């Protein structure tokens, strides 16, 4: 008898004994029924292929590990595996929140471009230029602390060590630097906002 005329049970036995071609015949014989079953639940061909593949991976593992004991009921058994995997798929996809664009809600409201537009960039450049001019007006010891803190991002401890003064002195110089900056800004009616 030709191998493709053998019953499912015989093919399974042959496959377990190591005849790999038996699996090909089993898949070819039942692929349409099993794939159609999966497609009836998941109307997406790519996902169906994934579930079909996972189904037969389980079948292969079960057969190869000699754990199969449902002789003569091959198709219902495979269908049950496929059914469980379809349920798993829906459980997983339920967990992933899906948000559609509506009139009230746009997905773009969640996305923003943090980079400045050309106008704001020009304003920012102007502010930085103004500020660098103003900083030149305050006393040297205050300017030194301000630049170390704001531009070089040093801690007051590090500033104190570098300038050879106590932390309190460094803090005081920083305070006076800001007070003096504010005075200059107010006196010259400078606007430093973006």
């Amino acid at each position, binding site marked *: 008898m030709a191998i493709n005329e053998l019953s499912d049970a015989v093919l399974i036995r042959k496959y377990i004994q190591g005849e790999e071609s038996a*699996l090909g015949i089993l*898949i070819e014989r039942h692929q349409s029924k099993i794939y*159609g079953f999966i497609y009836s639940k998941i109307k997406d061909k790519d996902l169906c292929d994934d579930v079909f593949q996972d189904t037969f991976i389980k079948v292969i593992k079960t057969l190869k*590990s000699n754990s199969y004991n449902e002789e003569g009921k091959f198709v219902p058994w495979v269908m049950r595996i496929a059914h469980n995997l379809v349920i798993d798929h829906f459980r997983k996809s339920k967990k992933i929140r899906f948000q559609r664009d509506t009139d009230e809600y746009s997905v773009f409201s969640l996305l923003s471009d943090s980079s400045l537009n050309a106008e704001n960039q020009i304003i920012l450049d102007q502010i930085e230029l103004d500020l660098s001019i103003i900083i030149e007006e305050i006393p040297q010891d205050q300017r030194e602390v301000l630049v170390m803190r704001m531009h070089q991002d040093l801690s007051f401890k590090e500033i104190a060590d570098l300038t050879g003064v106590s932390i309190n002195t460094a803090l005081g110089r920083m305070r006076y630097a800001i007070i003096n900056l504010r005075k200059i800004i107010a006196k010259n009616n400078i606007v430093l906002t973006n």
Partner: protein
Amino acid sequence: MAKLYSQKKLASQKMLPKKETISFLLHYSKALSIIKAGKFSFEFIAN
């Protein structure tokens, strides 16, 4: 002329998985071997 409503629909195409999927499964099956040792089972995939 009267319309024919009894005309047969075209037979729906059989739903089949991709050839690549079948090919993958056959290759996977050939590469896989499972060895049981007591309570444990070990899977080997031959390259």
